[in-house]
């Protein structure tokens, strides 16, 4: 039967657990929402993306082979469209952020000691480099070539745009965390400690909850 597909997929978890396709899809959708809501670029999830792409390709192959069952065909096609929408929206929002913060991200990338901590996937890193160099070349050809000698330098440091980590975001608490410290960097000494109860929703700055987000205790909504 053309519908029998491998449900268990080797998703790479830290524990090496196999994840079912629906779990991968769930995680991908969460990553999509987080990426949309976050002011900075989040860690890349290229394993989830690749896994879903595989699934879609496999499913499309199966569908090509079975032409008769019109009704099942349409349903699977709809589902493929839905998954493709999430994937392309996710990748598109990442590309937008890469273009915006290109120089900043490349600096961070070169200072990285461990490959695993990289926020950009290898293809994204290559894209960022190409984009940055195309931008510089463009400015050179357009303007800098034609201005007097002493103004011709291209200052990378001034070009780099840093993401605003003090942006306010909405978040939902998945794991209860007592005593979260919200530092008040306006220096008025209004540091606050909040107890995060499971299931509650908050609006606060991104910076204090950045680590909780990475550990999975909260999620952006």
């Amino acid at each position: 039967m053309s519908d029998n597909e491998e449900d268990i997929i080797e998703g790479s978890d830290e524990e090496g657990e196999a994840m079912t396709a629906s779990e991968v899809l769930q995680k991908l959708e969460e990553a999509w929402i987080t990426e949309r809501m976050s002011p900075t670029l989040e860690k890349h999830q290229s394993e989830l993306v690749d896994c879903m792409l595989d699934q879609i390709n496999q499913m499309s192959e199966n569908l090509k082979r079975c032409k008769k069952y019109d009704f099942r065909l349409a349903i699977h096609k709809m589902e493929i469209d839905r998954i493709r929408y999430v994937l392309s929206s996710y990748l598109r929002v990442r590309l937008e952020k890469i273009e915006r913060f290109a120089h900043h991200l490349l600096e961070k990338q070169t200072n990285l000691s461990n490959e695993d901590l990289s926020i950009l996937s290898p293809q994204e890193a290559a894209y960022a480099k190409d984009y940055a160099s195309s931008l510089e070349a463009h400015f050179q050809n357009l303007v800098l070539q034609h201005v007097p000698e002493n103004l011709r330098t291209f200052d990378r440091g001034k070009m780099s745009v840093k993401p605003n980590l003090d942006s306010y975001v909405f978040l939902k608490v998945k794991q209860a965390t007592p005593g979260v410290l919200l530092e008040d960097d306006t220096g008025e000494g209004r540091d606050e400690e909040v107890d995060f109860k499971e299931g509650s929703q908050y609006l606060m700055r991104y910076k204090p909850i950045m680590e909780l987000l990475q550990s999975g205790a909260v999620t952006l909504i």
Partner: protein
Amino acid sequence: MDSIEIEFLAEKAPVTIVPNFTHDKLYLISGDVGPFTAGLPVEVPLWLGINLRQRGKCRLVAPEWMDVEKLTEKKEEEKQSKVFTQMPCEHYLIVTQLLLSSAPEDIPNAQQIKTLVKDIWDLRISKLRSSVAEFIESEGTHATLDRLTLLEINSVRPFLPHAFDQLHRLSKSAHGSNLSQTTQDIQY
């Protein structure tokens, strides 16, 4: 986020349908659905249910909470309470709109339900608006929004986070300039 994207997320919610055909299990990527037996109810994702209904292959069953009495009670509760009450379904407005637009005949008292849900929505949004105004005036640094649904939160985006960003920037620079004034005083 656009409301269309929240609709996309809401379409994953499960809904019960009664198919008029028989078919075995469908192995979708997002999970298995079925098997379908004509006349027996089965749970499917909302997007699938709506599509099947549009092709005339099934009948939709109203979710348990979509009942005139229950909704009237909820509306009263919402009116009496100063804070937000827990909604029976995270995407109550979207599910109602989608179900009623594709199959109003399948849902009993469709018109009343529409009005009730709209009233509940209006009540909650006006509560949200007044609490936002209060909150900005009180200059808090973070807000608790329990029991608010995604679509309601989205109605104040991007205004609310933006406003807080600006307030934060202003207070930061106000403090910053105080510091630099002090150093200037010492220097001169």
